[in-house]
């Protein structure tokens, strides 16, 4: 039942369990109880809990005080000619190959955002005025930017 609930079954077993559920009130009840529990857990963990600032400050302090000497030692080791020279040559070689291969992503052209693609998809596939996607913020114009074509809120 747990595998069914989490979509872990193959299509045939999944269909068999689904069919069984249509006629077995006990199993249906068990599934609903499990779903309710999962939902409660999801809701419980949906809220982000923040650590007290005093603990965060302490952790940051500890990280800073430990990291500096280790970083310095590592840098010194890396800058030794025996390591630095071959590493630099390898970096130059890799960069050359990357610029030669046409399939490699470049940073020269404009870059769209994932939000742009999702907004276009939602706009072109929404099918109901009252559906959960219809008045989704993705479709609306930004409430903060002056540009009417700015990112959605």
């Amino acid at each position, binding site marked *: 039942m747990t595998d069914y609930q989490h979509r872990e079954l193959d299509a045939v077993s999944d269909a068999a369990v689904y069919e069984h559920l249509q006629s077995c009130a006990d199993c249906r009840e068990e599934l609903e109880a499990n779903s309710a529990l999962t939902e409660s857990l999801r809701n419980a963990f949906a809220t982000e809990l923040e650590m007290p600032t005093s603990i965060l400050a302490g952790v940051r302090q500890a990280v800073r005080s430990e990291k500096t000497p280790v970083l310095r030692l590592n840098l010194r080791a890396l800058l030794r000619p025996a390591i630095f020279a071959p590493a630099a040559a390898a970096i130059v070689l890799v960069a050359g190959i990357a610029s030669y291969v046409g*399939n490699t992503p470049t940073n020269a052209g404009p870059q769209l955002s994932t939000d742009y693609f999702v907004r276009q998809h939602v706009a072109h596939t929404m099918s109901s005025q*009252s559906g959960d996607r219809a008045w989704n913020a993705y479709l*609306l114009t930004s409430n903060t930017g002056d540009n009417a074509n700015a990112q959605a809120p």
Partner: protein
Amino acid sequence: MHKRRSRSVLFILGLAAVAWLSSAGAAFAASDGSALYAHAVEADDSVSYSGTLTSVVYETDHASSTVARIEHKAPNDWRIWYVAPEDAYGRMIVSNESLTYQYEPSRGRVYSHDFNQTAPGILAPVDLARVEANYSVEMGPPSSVAGRKVTSLSLVSKNTGSVVQRLWVDDQTKLILRRENYAADGNVGSRSSFDSIRIGVKLPQALFDLTVPAGMTLKSGTSYGKSTTNTTQLIKDLDFKFAPPKYLPNGFTLERGSLASHDGVNTVEFVYGDGIRTFSLFENATGRLPRFDRGEPTPIHIGEATGEFAEVEGQSLASWNAAGLNFTIVGDLSTKEIAKIGASIHP
């Protein structure tokens, strides 16, 4: 002995009768489910109402919720007032399903959206034949939503056996009072449900007038590519060579396409669907992966390329580069399906 045999025979006959009745019942429920579904998707064309709707969209690491007051005058007038989240409070949408005004009182602006051009799905009737070809519509037990008696419908894919959507349909008016969309991994991707609703309310037409109040300025809203079913012409007009997918999941077909220019980039979008599930394939000549503003991307192998994958706003999104082009797929698909579709594209 005789009695025992008689009992056995009766027992077997009883089992056979139960089996026959349940199979007949299932067939009846399925055809009944399809009929109810057909009524449900058209109910708001003839039923006016006023109610409060809560929508939740689940993402990988959080969920976002919207609460809106909806006033609908059948067949096409809508007035939607946002109550939550806090940063949307006061926003109002007035629409006649063709032209839509988005009122933003905090900025003194009204944004105009022409969804007639960009969102043909709102006006187009649901393709019931396609839905029936790809899904079985199963009726569930009666329950209640917002204090009204409803019947639940589960749309089960005939190709994968998975439940893709569940609807709770008002027994009296056939309005959909609750809807759950399931992601490709089986989890709930989004959910919307009426907390309260009043049916048949008399709403004055003035509520739906598309006017700009004094002190507010009318501006054009976010632009989207104009949707067309003439995809052959769309491909001819491109300034790069479009590479189509040779594989589509069972039941999916090409529905329409559009071309949009954003930040100087011409991007073509083709929408594919099976009646319920949809996905969009985007191609442009940037050869550059998009910026992931939300969601931490993970690597995904598409044929010989390695791209990036993330869940964004309840949608699967994968992007990769090949032959100087960028390909991005967004929709209700599993990573396996995306990888298979992507690998079948040969630019």
